[in-house]
């Protein structure tokens, strides 16, 4: 049962083959058994089981949705009433929120059962999960490899079948990169589709919640419950709710798939390129047309991102001052000293680095040269995607230059680490929906991801295109060894 997809679990729950309580117990036991992966930061079995019992009651009373009783893990960036919410930072050790994040609320309303909170990079800043204050997360495919980040705990939880689904967030690639490294399906919707209410902010203009699952079909089922307009988030987009499963059966015959030539150039490792090209050939075989497109400014994505994201983060993280909640230094001389020491002790090196960069680029005299300029280039990159979408329906390419790297391999060189997000950042800057689906294996038997990007609000089409591939291949059903 543990290896089943959300769609399969939904059917099993519907037919009475399994109860929500049984599923909760099964996954709680697995999480316990694979504690060494360090995917989970907070578990409260009594809370999980109470939710499972409520889900079974919903079903008994005929109020079940397709997701009622399906377990899910939440990235520790979402605040929750019943579990600690730390953003994987010492700053928020043990912090209990008085309210649930909107996506947590939405999924609970559909009857999904929370297994616990999963590890991530501190305040979602990182590409390997090595920045968590609570330790590394193992990649179940290879204990020496990183799971990716920042949603590394979510990726490992789904890859190791510790949860059929896990929420995640993407600011510059934090869903797609770990999904690729861990051999699972991960999707971020259009910016504004998922409410940011209750998501601990890193870079507000980029942060977007998404989901990690085994398949595109599962993601579509969950999006139906998870997304939607929220008046509490001013950047949430007011649109009629839609059925994200509606295009799952749509054939790809005649679909124009754009291949950005810049994403197949220098730096792309041969093992990754081979798997990605094979996937594109598969689409061709199914009747899609491959079109070469160009995103000439995409390479500026990284410098632009590392101005905008730190600028916003330097301001977003100012609220952690030790005054009202969170870590407060035990000894200090005066107010300024209290704030300085609390922040110096509470934040890890990566948030500190980004706060410094962000403070610098927003400083008087530098603002125009950095922040304003970065915003202009961001606009150019977004426009470039719009031009590309005149020539193609979806854009496909690699998610990362390489398969998952080893622990410590890039930790010493922040810039090298930042380059991990080369292919994912442009889409984030444009606010486009994007996903990663497993498309084979590369060096050391590690998974390779295929990145698919669609135009604004075309999540249903994106999921349909991914689903057709997953109907024709079985990469997404492969599991790491040793987890059975």
């Amino acid at each position, binding site marked *: 049962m543990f290896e089943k997809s959300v769609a399969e679990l939904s059917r099993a729950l519907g037919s009475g083959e399994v109860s929500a309580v049984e599923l909760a117990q099964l996954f709680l036991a697995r999480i316990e058994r694979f504690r060494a992966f360090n995917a989970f930061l907070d578990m409260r079995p009594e809370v999980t089981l109470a939710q499972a019992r409520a889900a079974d009651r919903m079903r008994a009373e005929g109020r079940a949705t397709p997701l009622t009783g399906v377990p899910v893990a939440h990235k520790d960036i979402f605040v929750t009433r019943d579990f600690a919410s730390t953003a994987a930072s010492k700053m928020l050790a043990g912090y209990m929120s008085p309210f649930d994040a909107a996506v947590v609320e939405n999924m609970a309303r559909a009857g999904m059962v929370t297994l616990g909170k999963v590890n991530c990079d501190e305040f979602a800043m990182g590409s390997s999960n090595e920045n968590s204050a609570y330790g590394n997360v193992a990649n179940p495919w290879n204990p020496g490899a990183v799971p990716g980040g920042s949603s590394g705990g979510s990726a490992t939880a789904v890859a190791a079948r510790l949860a059929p689904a896990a929420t995640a967030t993407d600011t510059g690639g934090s869903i797609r990169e770990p999904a690729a490294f861990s051999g699972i399906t991960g999707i971020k919707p259009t910016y504004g589709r998922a409410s940011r209410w209750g*998501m601990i902010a890193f870079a507000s203009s980029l942060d977007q919640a998404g989901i990690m699952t085994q398949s595109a079909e599962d993601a579509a089922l969950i999006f139906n419950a998870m997304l939607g307009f929220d008046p509490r988030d001013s950047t949430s987009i007011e649109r009629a709710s839609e059925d994200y499963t509606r295009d799952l059966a749509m054939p790809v015959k005649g679909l124009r798939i754009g291949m950005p030539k810049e994403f197949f150039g220098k730096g792309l490792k041969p093992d990754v390129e081979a798997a990605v090209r094979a996937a594109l050939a598969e689409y061709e075989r199914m009747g899609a047309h491959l079109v070469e497109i160009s995103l000439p400014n995409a390479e500026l994505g990284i410098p632009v991102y590392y101005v905008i994201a730190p600028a916003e983060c330097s301001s977003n993280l100012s*609220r952690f001052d030790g005054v*009202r909640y969170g870590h407060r230094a035990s000894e200090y001389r005066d107010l300024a000293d209290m704030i300085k020491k609390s922040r110096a002790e509470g934040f890890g090196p990566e948030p500190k680095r980004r706060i410094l960069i962000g403070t610098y680029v927003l400083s008087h005299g530098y603002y125009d040269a950095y922040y304003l300029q970065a915003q202009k280039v961001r606009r150019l990159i977004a426009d470039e995607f719009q031009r590309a979408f005149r020539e193609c329906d979806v854009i496909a390419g690699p998610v990362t230059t390489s398969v998952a790297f080893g622990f410590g391999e890039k930790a010493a060189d922040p810039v090298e680490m930042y380059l991990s997000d080369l292919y994912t950042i442009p889409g984030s800057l444009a606010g486009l929906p994007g996903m990663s689906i497993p498309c084979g294996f590369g060096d050391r038997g590690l998974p390779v991801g295929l990145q698919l990007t669609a135009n604004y609000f075309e999540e249903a089409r994106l999921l349909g295109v991914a689903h057709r591939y997953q109907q024709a291949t079985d990469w997404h059903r492969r599991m790491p060894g040793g987890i059975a």
Partner: protein
Amino acid sequence: MRADWEVVIGLETHAQLATKSKIFSGSSTRFGALPNVQASAIDLALPGVLPVLNAGAVECAIKFGLAVGAKVAERSIFARKNYFYPDLPKGYQISQYEIPVVQGGSVTIHVDGVDKTVQLTRAHLEEDAGKSLHEDYHGMSGIDLNRAGTPLLEIVTEPDMRSSAEAVAYAKALHSLVVWLGICDGNMQEGSFRCDANVSVRPKGRKEFGTRCEIKNLNSFRFLEQAIEHEITRQIDLIEDGGRVVQETRLYDPDRNETRSMRSKEDAMDYRYFPDPDLLPLEITADAVARVRAGMPELPQAMRARFEAQYGLPAYDAATLTASRGLAGYFEAAVAAFGGDAKLVSNWVMGDLLGRLHEADLGADAAPVTPAMLGGLLKRIADGTISGKIAKEVFATLWVEGGSADTVIEAKGLRQISDSGAIEKIVDEVLAANPKSVEEFRAGKDKAFNALVGQAMKASRGKANPTQVNEILKRKLAG
């Protein structure tokens, strides 16, 4: 002020907007609650919260923009002003920086009988911070976040004022305008309306401005005047003694009547403003402006002109009656209820009514004598039922006991005596009792006539029709 110096003043005013809830959260803005009971998760800046703009605050800004003839921006931007302070929960204040919602405009002031126009630079929306409480916590400070997130309109003038009197006149005109518009309660003790003054001096005739100092947080007109006066003297003394004014922020201490330095330009903070990514640009459509315009009250200046034209009132009366919307409304309602001479209404409103309102510290809306009651009273003066003097007595009774003029007149038997037979009888008695006055009158002393009229009125306990008393007395003395 010394004759060879010119003073240059600009004001920045924070008007707290009279919305029920905060600018970015649903918490109440009521004043005086127990600490932190009006602080929601948003006001506390808990992890994961987001701001949502209160449309009511925007409407206030539009009203203000229309009232001062400013441009209401179709698109303005909320920006974050970043600094650490314990009563600033997010570590930044949401304000407007490069593109404010209200641009330009002007306010007209009257000083020494002269009209002067003060140009506004801008007015922008922002949130207030909380309060640090330094007493009663045994060496620690308390934080009250009830005020955090209260909507403010910061109104900035050009450096157009040339004396403390002009600055005070501007502050008063602005105060009465925002209260008139209903966008601010104007309560200065509670901090709903507070000014910062930028003051500099220069030798008369010089074009360039002198170095300015900003004096913070002046929450009464008297403090504003004293602080500016003090600052002018300080700057002139400094320069005349060969020193230089240093650009800095100064705090006024009303107990010592002096300003002292808070921070110099060198330690000025870098607020690292940038557009708030949690809020979309504020877009105000022409339709929205038109809707607000349709609901705007008549503005004081227009009303003053109308009062002069429509009611034939002197300029002084029109200005006094339009000092507040409540008083102006009272006057117009009383005119309608009375139906007679508007000048008579004006005299009563400016006289007995205002006097008693001041005494009781009440607004015109709360006057125990309503416009209808006053109208009823004036009708009885006009139709000769009572004299003006008796009317004052009736007014006093109405103020305390309520009722109508007619019931009071009846109950107290105050109806004027207009029966000439009865008045003749009174006059005969007065003439008989005051032979000395009669003699003096006949000897050519006009004053004696007035004394006799007074005696006759007194004998009637004020109720005799004075015109008839005059006529009858004249006739009898002549005869």
